[in-house]
């Protein structure tokens, strides 16, 4: 900012510089900018020419039938697909302007872009150690700091009141819904910018599901959330934008309201009306 002010005062003709600043700031309002993404598992073309902008502090839902590429797309965003072996990524995926396949180390990227999985997967350790895992990886060892991060993260994940007296107990003693909120707390503790959720409620009962949805809505004030879901009501209830994938193509990406009330593509309409998938 200081640079541009200086430029303005010394050179009144630098309007184009200001314009590019504005464009850059718009790009920064995007958490992710995906350009011409093509993705292959071996020779299988799993995602085709995906272009997408994911806005900050919004919930973006990815929907589509099984095998459409929505989970693959999600796992590209924090490079979890790197662990699967024979993959090829073409195109550019930027997190706040930085190319995640060129400019950022995967382990740093995964601190910034956390992930919550389909099955709650707490480590077989105490609640405390689960939440402190990420901060410890980042080199935080001070007990007071860790205590504070653990409490904050559990509070944000609406789990603190239920577990504050048993932080030293095993994480596997929690119920499924509590385990999933613990996994969210564990992700929050790494202080991410984006949280990816891969069908986070598909293994949970309706009450736990409602809690997680409520939590997602609270969290979007501070974080950007991308959620894969099979449950279309869920996408309609909580997301701001919805992307519909089919056979590796991004068929339609728009405001959730539009997708569910007035989809522009006939395939989208067929899918949300349950005519296939």
């Amino acid at each position, binding site marked *: 900012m200081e640079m541009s002010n200086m430029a303005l005062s010394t050179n009144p003709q630098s309007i184009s510089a200001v314009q590019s600043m504005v464009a850059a700031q718009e790009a920064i309002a995007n958490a992710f900018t995906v350009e011409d993404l093509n993705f292959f598992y071996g020779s299988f073309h799993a995602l085709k020419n995906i272009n997408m902008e994911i806005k900050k502090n919004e919930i973006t839902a990815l929907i589509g039938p099984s095998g459409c590429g929505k989970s693959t797309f999600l796992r590209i965003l924090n490079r979890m697909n790197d662990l699967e072996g024979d993959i090829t990524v073409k195109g550019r995926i930027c997190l706040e302007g930085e190319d995640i396949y060129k400019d950022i180390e995967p382990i740093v990227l995964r*601190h910034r872009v*956390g992930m919550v999985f389909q099955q709650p997967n707490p480590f*077989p350790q105490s609640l405390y150690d689960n939440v402190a895992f990420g901060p410890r*990886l980042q080199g935080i060892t001070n007990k007071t700091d860790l205590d504070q991060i653990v409490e904050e993260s559990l509070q944000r994940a609406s789990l603190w009141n239920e577990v504050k007296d048993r932080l*030293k107990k095993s*994480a596997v003693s929690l119920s499924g819904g509590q385990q999933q909120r613990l996994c969210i707390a564990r*992700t929050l503790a790494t202080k991410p910018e984006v949280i990816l959720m891969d069908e986070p409620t598909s293994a949970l009962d309706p009450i736990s599901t409602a809690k997680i949805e409520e939590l997602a809505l609270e969290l979007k004030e501070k974080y950007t959330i991308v959620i894969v879901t099979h449950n279309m009501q869920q996408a309609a209830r909580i997301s701001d934008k919805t992307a519909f994938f089919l056979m590796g193509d991004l068929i339609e990406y728009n405001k959730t309201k539009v997708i569910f009330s007035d989809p522009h593509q006939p395939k989208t309409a067929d899918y949300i009306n349950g005519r296939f998938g």
Partner: protein
Amino acid sequence: MQASKAIPAPRRRALTSDRIVTLSLHVLAGATLLLLLSFVGYIAYSALIDFQPSLLEFSPTGIGNQLFNTVYLVFLSLIISVPLGIGAGIYMAEYATHGRIQKVLRIAIETLSSLPSIVVGLFGYLVFIIMTNSQWNLFAGALTVSILTLPLIATITEDALRALPASYAKGSYGLGATKWQTISRVLIPAAFPAIITGIILAAGRVFGEAAALMFTAGMSTDINWNSTDITSPTNAFNPFRSGETLSLQIWASRSESLDPHASAMANLSALLLLALVFMFSIGARALSRYLNRKNLGDTK
């Protein structure tokens, strides 16, 4: 109600064979237990009937020194084989996961684990005694028995790591952990109770080993308990002194000893050895439970 009491013939046969199998399994289990108990009872009886307090002395007339040697040798061999074995298991489960290297490694380990211990003993004698130009010593014995225990610990570690749900590793990578952080902070602690089992089995093998130690750890023991100089050849804790273990001593007293108490000595050694293995096993399990609780947190 009456109709349901009439069981059709095929179902009746199924029920009968179910009962027969259940009964036979109980009988077999009971027989095994009885065999074990009578075996232990016989050993205890033979040991106690000839018992003399002097046999327990830490001197050439007692078996105290052999008892110490046994414990010390197990300790030395575990120091060598536990890190190496766990390391090999990690390598096979997480690094050399497929391809030619893994096949070759697996064949090597399987072969190693089925080598007769006398062959390993002679190999140890050749490599750790003759080629190093040294006298029989406990350290050479520990190295030699480690060849026998390594494959055991490596295989059990590998199996334990492979048995963990993939979601543990995914969760850890998802939080930005490196591969080694994932292995050391999540996978090894989660597999630890199983790895302990491997260590207990390995220790049991060392407690009972005789053939591999005959030509490496040696058959003589000369300990001066007043020595405080660890480099002295008579200092108890000098790993480079020779030291006879309990099982070697049983073998020696039963085969070539001229000592009038030889048989009483062998019987008492057998009982002590049994008690030692038992205590070690209980101790290791208690340690495993403790670490697990510390790690896992209380499960209630």
